[in-house]
């Protein structure tokens, strides 16, 4: 009884803090940042979110390798685990949600909400906090929750039908290609070449929106790959 109460109170605190986080995000003052930087970044890049401007424009070189590291991790997991025979189970329904989330409706609802939230965070990465990495992880977590009442193998089959794993590889190539393309437009590689737009509108910050979406997709597919192989081979490694 006490343990159950404890679990529920943990969930309530989690929800409370999440709400607090979402409410507080809009009211953060940009203190501690010298005015020189914030104005010059805004003029250079056009992104309201300075962090996004830095990792998608000034430090694009680092970001490319960060994506590559993530790809290698997911690729390594899938390559090594594919050679190990998987758990012989008819269904890979993991039933984690049995106690936490009472029925199928709440699982589907949370999946839907998290997917919408993930896409929102990906496409507004240059306007507010978030961006591709976080959006991808949230999308992956949404699928993870969905597997609480849906068969994992079925989800993986749907993914194979949509050729998500192939698209993932093209995305990995697309990001450096986008960087090299800037050579033809501006004479320098890995810089912002699209029009900056009006700061604050969706189409501002040049390439930020495309890059955020690509990175988000990459991280989403990577988290799913790692998760699927871990569940598929659980208890065997």
């Amino acid at each position, binding site marked *: 009884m006490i*343990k159950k109460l*404890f*679990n529920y109170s*943990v969930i309530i*605190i*989690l929800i409370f*803090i*999440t709400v*607090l*986080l979402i409410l*507080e*995000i809009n009211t*953060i*003052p*940009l*203190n*501690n940042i010298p005015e020189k930087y914030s104005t010059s970044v805004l003029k250079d890049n056009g992104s309201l*979110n300075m*962090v*996004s401007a830095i990792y998608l424009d000034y430090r694009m070189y680092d970001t490319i390798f960060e994506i590559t590291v993530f790809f290698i991790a997911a690729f390594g997991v899938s390559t090594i685990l594919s050679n190990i025979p998987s758990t012989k189970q008819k269904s890979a329904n*993991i*039933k*984690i949600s049995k106690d936490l989330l009472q029925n199928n409706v709440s699982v589907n609802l949370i999946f839907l909400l998290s997917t919408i939230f993930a896409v929102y*965070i990906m496409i507004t990465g240059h306007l*507010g*906090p*978030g*961006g591709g*990495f*976080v959006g991808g*992880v*949230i999308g*992956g*977590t949404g699928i*993870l*929750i969905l597997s609480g009442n849906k068969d994992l193998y079925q989800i993986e089959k749907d993914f194979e039908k949509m050729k998500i794993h192939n698209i993932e590889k093209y995305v990995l190539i697309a990001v450096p290609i986008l960087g090299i393309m800037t050579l033809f437009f501006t004479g320098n590689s890995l810089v912002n070449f699209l029009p900056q737009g009006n700061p604050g509108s969706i189409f501002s910050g040049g390439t930020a929106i495309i890059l955020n979406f690509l990175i988000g997709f990459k991280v989403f597919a990577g*988290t799913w790959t790692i*998760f699927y192989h*871990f*569940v598929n081979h*659980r*208890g065997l490694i």
Partner: protein
Amino acid sequence: MISSIFWILSLITVIGIIISKDLLINILLFGLFGTFSSGAYLFMGAPDVSFASFALGAAFTTFVFLISIRKTGKLTVAYLEAPYMITENENGEIWGFEFDVLKEYANSSNMDLDFIKLESLDDLKHHSTHIDILAGGLFEEMITEEIRKDFTSVKEIPTRIALDKNGDLRDLMRIKSLIVSGEQTLDFLTESKTSEYILLISKHDKDMYSKINSFIKKLKDEGKIEEYISRNLG
């Protein structure tokens, strides 16, 4: 100021992780730690880092841990062949009253069951693998002192035991199967008395005894045990 409160809270959760011995509570505390630290980052003026910390630390990692808990969640059950209680049919499937109880327990605590068949209780000495639960129509009079050193007993349901001609103790369900198959008639028994079926729980895991004890109590309160009895024992 506010961020320091979050840091103190995350410190408390980490202490909780160290103190708590329950795996599930540990995972939830870990999620709480991710939430608190993301709150701290937020009030330090780094909402991007806070978001990443929340998505990874509080949500994703917690779920992956919750799933991998099943890997460690494995119960090894050694059983004696006991008709109607826990027995194998022609297709190699195990069924019976105790099997139903154990399966329900494993389902409720997210564990997988592993079964090892024993010919007699003396076989236990030859098994090197760790055995969590001993089952198979056991009753108190059957258990030797040697077994008692490693196992504690949990009472299931009342039964009757009786002596047969050879002086061996037999329980109600074994007698029933002998009569049904026509090998024996009722008159071979002497000295019948009441006893109770028990499960033997390994002393290695100190929590498991109280968990299974309260689980069986819960089954009795909910009336589920009647269902299992009528399904298997008749």
